[in-house]
């Protein structure tokens, strides 16, 4: 049926109900029918595109998560004073009443070893660890006054993505799809791509749907092997044969629908048709082998690899197809200093250069395709890293930093975000935001704002309470909006 017609029928039914229900016995029938709920299957498509609360600058999101938390003091937040005091005991005022994951006693301050310069017209401070990003400095906003409440990976990631440090709440991507639906008819609305074969600590909770209907949860796609679980037809069954089967299935389902009269049977038929289409589209979109060599090279992507570079390129291909939210996780940013890869000198330069090549390529690619203006890009970790050397590794040759929730940096670009801007400042040694503190709840509120939502009004009732992404917090950071 034409969607508009379907809608009209639904409306007519609603009117009928409002005029006819009786309030007898217990709950009136009208309230029995009040709202759709997570546990009830519906005959309409919950992922149909929807309009937000107000006109939005961003239509979709690509979130690049650096799992483990990048050492922001060696990337974005240049602290000359910390360099001066390098090797000195950390002042007591910064330790009193604080807990750190792997540091006790009095650690030594650690200035960066990375060369820092201002880049772009905007003069954004960036280190040489992320050289490729220098070229896009005028496309991005850097926030240097981020704050979170958690100093262990899993709770911090959950807080960042679900607004709550424990499992069980819907994630940012799920809320986005719940609010906006999906533009693609053949692909999931929320796709998760993981590089280097390691899940983030927060696990599937970072892309879960919590108490929202599970259609809103992230679908993990893989750049290596079968792109979506169970996507391929079983060995020996070709497309023609599948089509034959689906036609028979449709015929039989229609006979049942006639017999029992349940309209949900029709939804079942349409979901199978969607799955059939998805088999083709997902395989197609996940196959980067036909991308021009120049494009592959710019991202550093290689067909068949499970790399972050491939995933950045896939992110672009997915949003081009209308996917609403793409979440990337890249493992290997936990710079404790337990091995040379976790050293804030060469280790970071290597990790930073390879990965930001792909990030810069993505930003430029989107810009060329005129997609950057309404695609929101976020790059960052779940917290920051300490301005002092990590306790366990302080005696070794490798320089590392501990987890640090009180102050860190994050980068945004695209839909609704200022191009070439720096927001907030940390104090001289980088222990606290000195100006314009942005809590992760504020970040969430701001992302929702860019997508056209008042974060206090995008809610879902569960266990008697209206829940939202920002819990009871969150303030839109107007200063970074374009």
């Amino acid at each position, binding site marked *: 049926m034409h969607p508009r017609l379907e809608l009209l029928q639904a409306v007519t039914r609603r009117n009928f109900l409002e005029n006819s229900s009786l309030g007898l016995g*217990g709950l009136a029938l009208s309230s029995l029918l009040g709202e759709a709920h997570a546990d009830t299957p519906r005959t309409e498509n919950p992922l149909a595109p929807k309009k937000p609360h107000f006109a939005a600058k961003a239509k979709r999101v690509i979130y690049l998560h650096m799992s483990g938390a990048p050492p922001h003091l060696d990337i974005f937040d240049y602290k000359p004073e910390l360099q001066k005091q390098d090797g000195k005991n950390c002042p007591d005022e910064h330790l009193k009443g604080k807990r750190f994951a792997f540091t006790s006693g009095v650690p030594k301050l650690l200035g960066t070893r990375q060369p820092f310069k201002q880049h772009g017209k905007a003069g954004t401070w960036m280190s040489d660890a992320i050289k490729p990003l220098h070229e896009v400095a005028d496309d991005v906003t850097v926030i240097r006054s981020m704050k979170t409440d958690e100093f262990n990976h899993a709770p911090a990631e959950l807080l960042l993505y679900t607004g709550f440090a424990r499992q069980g709440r819907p994630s940012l991507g799920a809320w986005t799809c719940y609010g906006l639906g999906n533009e693609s008819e053949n692909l999931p609305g929320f796709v998760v791509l993981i590089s280097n074969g390691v899940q983030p600590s927060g696990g599937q909770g970072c892309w879960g749907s919590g108490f929202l209907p599970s259609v809103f949860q992230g679908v993990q796609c893989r750049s290596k092997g079968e792109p979506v679980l169970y996507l391929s037809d079983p060995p020996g069954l070709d497309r023609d044969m599948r089509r034959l089967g689906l036609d028979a299935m449709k015929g039989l389902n229609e006979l049942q629908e006639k017999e029992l009269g349940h309209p949900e049977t029709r939804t079942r038929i349409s979901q199978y048709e969607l799955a059939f289409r998805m088999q083709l589209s997902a395989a197609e979109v996940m196959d980067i082998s036909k991308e021009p060599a120049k494009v592959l090279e710019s991202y550093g992507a290689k067909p068949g690899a499970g790399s972050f570079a491939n995933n950045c390129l896939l992110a672009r291909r997915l949003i081009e197809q209308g996917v609403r939210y793409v979440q990337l996780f890249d493992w290997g940013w936990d710079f404790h200093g337990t091995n040379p890869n976790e050293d804030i000198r060469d280790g970071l330069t290597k990790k930073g250069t390879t990965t930001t090549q792909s990030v810069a390529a993505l930003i430029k690619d989107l810009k060329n395709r005129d997609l950057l203006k309404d695609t929101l890009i976020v790059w960052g970790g779940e917290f920051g890293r300490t301005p002092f050397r990590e306790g366990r590794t302080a005696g070794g040759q490798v320089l590392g930093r501990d987890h640090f929730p009180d102050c860190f940096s994050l980068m945004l670009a695209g839909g609704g975000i200022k191009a070439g801007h720096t927001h907030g400042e940390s104090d001289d040694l980088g222990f606290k935001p000195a100006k314009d503190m942005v809590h992760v709840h504020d970040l969430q509120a701001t992302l929702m704002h860019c997508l056209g939502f008042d974060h206090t009004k995008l809610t879902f009732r569960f266990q008697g309470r209206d829940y939202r992404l920002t819990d009871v917090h969150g303030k839109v950071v107007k200063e970074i909006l374009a």
Partner: protein
Amino acid sequence: MRLPTGLLGLSFTLLVFAAPVARAQPLPAKIDFNRDVRPILSNNCFQCHGPDDKVRKARLRLDVREGATAAAIVPGKPDASELITRLTATPDDKSVMPPVKTGKKITAREVEILKQWIKEGATYTTHWAYVAPKRSELPKTKYQIANPIDAFIFARLEAEKLAPMPEADRYALARRAALDLTGLPPTQEEVETFVADKTTQAYEKFVDKMLAKTAFGEHWARMWLDLARYADSAGYADDPQRTIWKYRDYVIQSFNANKPFDVFTLEQLAGDLLPNPTTEQLIATAFHRNTMTNSEGGTNDEEFRNVAVVDRVNTTFTVWMGTSMACAQCHTHKYDPITQVEYFRSLAFFNNSADADRPDESPTLPFWTDELLKKKTDLEKQIADLETALKGKKPEEMKTERDKLAVLKKDLAAVKPLTTVPIMKELTGAARRKTKLQFRGNFMDLGEEVTEGTPAAFPALKVVAGPQPGGLNRLHLAKWLVSEENPLTARVVANRFWEQIFGTGLVRTSEEFGAQGEQASHPELLDWLATELIAKKWDTKEFLKLLAMSSAYRQSAKVTPELFEKDPDNRLLARGPRVRLSAEMIRDQSLFAAGLLSTKTLGPSVRPQQPNLGVSAAFGGSIDWQTSTGEDKYRRGVYTQWRRSNPYPSMSTFDAPNRDACVVRRGRTNTPLQALVSMNDPVYIEAAQSLARRTIENGGKTTAAKAAFAFRACLVRAPSDAEVTVLAKLFDDAKAKFSKDATKATQFATNPLGPLPKGVDVSEAAAWTVVVNVIMNLDEMLMKR
């Protein structure tokens, strides 16, 4: 077709089409505070003018009459009541309530209700769920009733000008009841016996047979394991494996033994505190050892011990009382009369167990064989003897003995019990912890010390056996939960059983019975069932039988467009229930139809086939697993190893939760990803191949007979002629195609099940596999109907 806007509270898309022509619904003849008024006040006002005095604005309290009449309400005079003035002020008026920035908006009808209520005297009554259930007279109905349930359901249908459906046919009924009671379809023989039985007790006999099967406990355990957040891993970032399957077996065995629900309660919450607890009662306490343990480096054990204890409080009150205590952890509850102090008094009950977020999950209960136990005690004795001999000797003396001692100790360490299960153990004496209020729920920001106690809004906890050292304990709490005075437990439990059988609870929000929960669709019926559950001494099987025997349950699931329009969710039950099967049922049913499902019960969790993902958990091991061998590949879903960071993918696609926390209600979504699972997952292909082979061997001579055989194996009933025609045509088409491509045919007929039996034509086997794969994906197959 439902309004997408209902799901979202966004109505922009719709307004384009739907001019707001809806006329207001008439006001109820008599305002009922709980039904009509409390939801309005609770949704719009209590957050700032409710029980929580910390955030109360303007010192105005609307959740109690004294507060409301002191300032905002003049009983009898709506126009003189400030409440109405504020609610009806224009949005640009600063005094308007609720404040514009809250995004809450009261409707004209709601204002009318409040006016009417004030006019009638603004009387408050206690929240319905906090008042003891009342057993009312059975309502009269002109329809034939099978038991008292029908009286309530049918009287309501009459009032709504609806009529019940006739009874479903026997095949439908057999499949429905078998799925509901055992989670599996009935066997052919069970169905035929039932269909052929012309006595009036035929259906009752069938129900009794289902209740007596081992499969009963395996099915009903699933629901309870969701509540108990049972998993085979400890959770958090590295999510290590946890050995706790003895608890899962305890739940299955308890359901099969028809353990009264009150005993089931006492054992799980306080089995360790019962006099001379049995092994079974100790295993039961693992209920609260299913909380997560955090082994991530750098985490504080006390912090996560506290998180686990908080989870135990929240889970206990959710499971038994449908009360979301969680809100009161950080501040006094905004909707229900539970203060923060009361929260921590409830927490005190759980704060003195010996476990403490340790990686080894201690304390645990070991299980030894006689042989192992003997070996262990022998070694222990030898070690003790040697140690006595070495006492007082200098380190350089008796070297041989010392070496021997080291070897013995190593040997002893290698003697491991068969299995273990984490249990609850109450701390005693100086080891006992003091419980203090935690400001904003922060375990480091402590306030006054509190002692064990239950919230004052509920009936007082009476100490039956006299105060023990340390005052009240978990056993007292458990007894209080299942005491006759408790207004919630019986209602909550009855409603949950109802939800499993009928698809939706009488109270739809089965997890929430507080002010923010929904009212029951049939309040008198809910109360009747609650009192019945207690009168029947918490007899679970008896109670489920009562539900299954009702005519309401036995109705045909057929629906007319008019009825579907009026009651799409089937809350009024003018037809039989029809809902999607659970993840476990969908998988088990296919394996059952295939003849592959193992009947082996209990024991360690198994690892059926799952795709290799090539990822590992952060800081943890690989998520992939080695598939179990032999029949363990085909065990019921309830035995599948449950890893929280990576739940069995095909089941989580069908809404199985990861069980990080207590889950009362699972989703029942319908998505394309589910279609991919049941069409392509090798587990389902293998099932299709297996049934295809059975069909060829036993399905009869003709294609039509074979099609009917496969169909019945899956769906219990015989197919119609039209259905047989479709299936037979599919078979012919598929066979024609496979005949031209032996490679494809061989692959599809044998991968992964293995080579065909001798003499079976490969294209025929492949073609029947296609047919079975289609049947196993039919809407009817995925639904209980």
